[in-house]
């Protein structure tokens, strides 16, 4: 009995710890005087009007979407094709190559490569280009995406493809009719993962997009301050809520549309 009460109390504390920020995110945007604490809101929509009037707030969310769509599309498409090739074709040193890529990927877009990346992009004249920044982010995510997708495609039985080949399917048809649909849950996972990674990426856009008009939400959030230099608590709660919505929406959509796993058809 005592153990059970201790357990319940412990779980309640842990739950509250995680629930408070969520409740803040739900209530503060509608409070006439939002603070950092949690309280029953004094209902108003003024914060929303002020945020929408902010010169860069909505624009930065659009920038974020552009950046993430580029990065996610490049990562998912190239990652899938590369993973399929690496899974099916035997080349010497394949596993070493994969591990090396994975190891380096954390360096490539990590803090260690900050200066070289900036210099390179500067010399290429690609500073302040959202597409170029999207490509750099995708470059950093690709090794991990390939690694995860290869594992996934490895588990797709070869007899599916061989069966399609025997019936006369061309390599493109094999890919489109069989491999992609069967690997769809894995691809969907990578798609959401890549989007979330790119959406929350601060360092690269901060370095490569110097123009405030081009900056994504993650970077703009840092600059939301009032005249006194302290956090602008009128705009930040609304902006945070808006910032959280696309990721949650994408997750729900993908999990509903593609997240289920096909099985059967192979008699094991």
């Amino acid at each position, binding site marked *: 009995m005592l153990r059970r009460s201790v357990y319940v109390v412990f779980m309640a504390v842990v739950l509250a710890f995680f629930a408070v920020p969520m409740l803040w995110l739900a209530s503060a945007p509608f409070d006439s005087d939002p603070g950092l604490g949690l309280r029953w809101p004094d209902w108003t929509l003024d914060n929303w009007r002020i945020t929408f009037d902010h010169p860069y707030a909505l624009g930065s969310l659009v920038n974020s979407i552009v950046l993430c769509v580029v990065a996610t599309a490049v990562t998912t498409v190239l990652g899938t094709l590369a993973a399929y090739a690496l899974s099916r074709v035997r080349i010497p040193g394949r596993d070493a190559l994969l591990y090396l890529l994975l190891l380096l990927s954390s360096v490539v877009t990590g803090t260690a490569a900050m200066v070289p990346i900036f210099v390179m992009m500067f010399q290429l004249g690609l500073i302040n280009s959202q597409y170029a920044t999207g490509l750099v982010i995708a470059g950093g995510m690709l090794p991990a995406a390939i690694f995860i997708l290869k594992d996934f495609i490895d588990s797709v039985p070869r007899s599916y493809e*061989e069966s*399609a*080949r025997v019936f*006369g*399917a061309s390599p493109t048809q094999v890919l489109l009719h069989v491999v992609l649909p069967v690997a769809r849950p894995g691809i969907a996972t990578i798609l959401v993962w890549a989007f979330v990674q790119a959406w929350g990426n601060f360092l690269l856009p901060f370095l490569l997009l110097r123009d405030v008009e081009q900056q994504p939400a993650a970077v703009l959030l840092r600059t939301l301050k009032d005249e006194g230099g302290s956090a602008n608590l009128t705009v930040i709660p609304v902006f945070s809520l808006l910032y959280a919505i696309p990721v949650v929406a994408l997750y729900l959509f993908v999990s509903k549309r593609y997240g289920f796993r096909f*099985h059967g*058809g*192979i*008699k094991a």
Partner: protein
Amino acid sequence: MGAIELTGLSTVYPNGVRAVDSLDLAIRDGEFFALLGPSGCGKTTLLRTIAGLEQASEGVVSLAGSDVTRVEAGKRGVAMVFQDYALFPHMTVAQNIAYPLRVKRAPKQAQTAAAESKAAGLGLSALLERRPAQLSGGQQQRVALARAIAMEASVLLLDEPLSNLDARLRLDARTFLKRLQRDLGLTTVFVTHDQAEALALADRIAVMSDGKIRQLGTPKEVFQRPADTFVANFIGSTPMNLLPGSVSDGLVEVAGARLAPPADLALTDGTPVVAGIRPEYLRRSTDGITGTVSIVENLGVTSLVTIECPGDTLVGLTVPEHEEPEIGATLTASPDQGRLLLYHGETNQLLGEAAVAD
């Protein structure tokens, strides 16, 4: 139209294994042909080489008289059912069956019509909208067959068609498969490691080991007159007695007995031989191989009795039910007329003709 001819065919894997080793084989049009052998004997590789999924390293594969050795899988007019069936899990039964037509970009109506007619022929009409995961093993197998038939190929290849079904269903599927093959008249080659399956289904059997064909013949030939001791050992649900012995005075001395050799064989004294007698062809008699009963195994209608003979030789024979001897009793048995086979003691080859009179 669907004859297959293999000439000097070898398939060598990159690691140097000669899975199929300079093999010659002609399969007739409309024949139901079995490739039989233990695992690792190259039978599946041979089937995949015919399908075009493995590239032949040497030799020629020809189908219906034309050389297809370098033709891609899918352009050879060869359909195949995989051991695991490989039904596409994201497609319905109808889509699976119509897949060979979809690849050829046939109109949607033709695809639906093909799916419906093939499904009707195999008793799958009620299942057209299901996905493979919602089917039983036997249903999945029939969908895989329907899909292969929908390709309208002249040759059908089956990789271990019955191995994934449970024992009871396997017998039904065996009968079903044999009737289907007869109705379609397709040249059909199947791979199996189960000798009973090969004997029951095939018109002719090739028994393989180490990438080579050890014996090619009708089920009757392979069962009654195995060409060497390997085939003799492999075929038959109870293992054949293979007893080393020698020839003296024109008689065969094995297991402490002297047996009369087959009439048409001229044997020189001192030749080392291996006598092969199936347990089913040994009868109790007054004269012959004598030993002490050590084990009795019940096989249903018959029992397999193992007797210990002089020289620590074990000999098995089957006896009808109700006639089982006591353990420890002495029992004498002799082979039925014409059922004693003699193999050369060194080459392990059958002495005499392998052909059987019907």
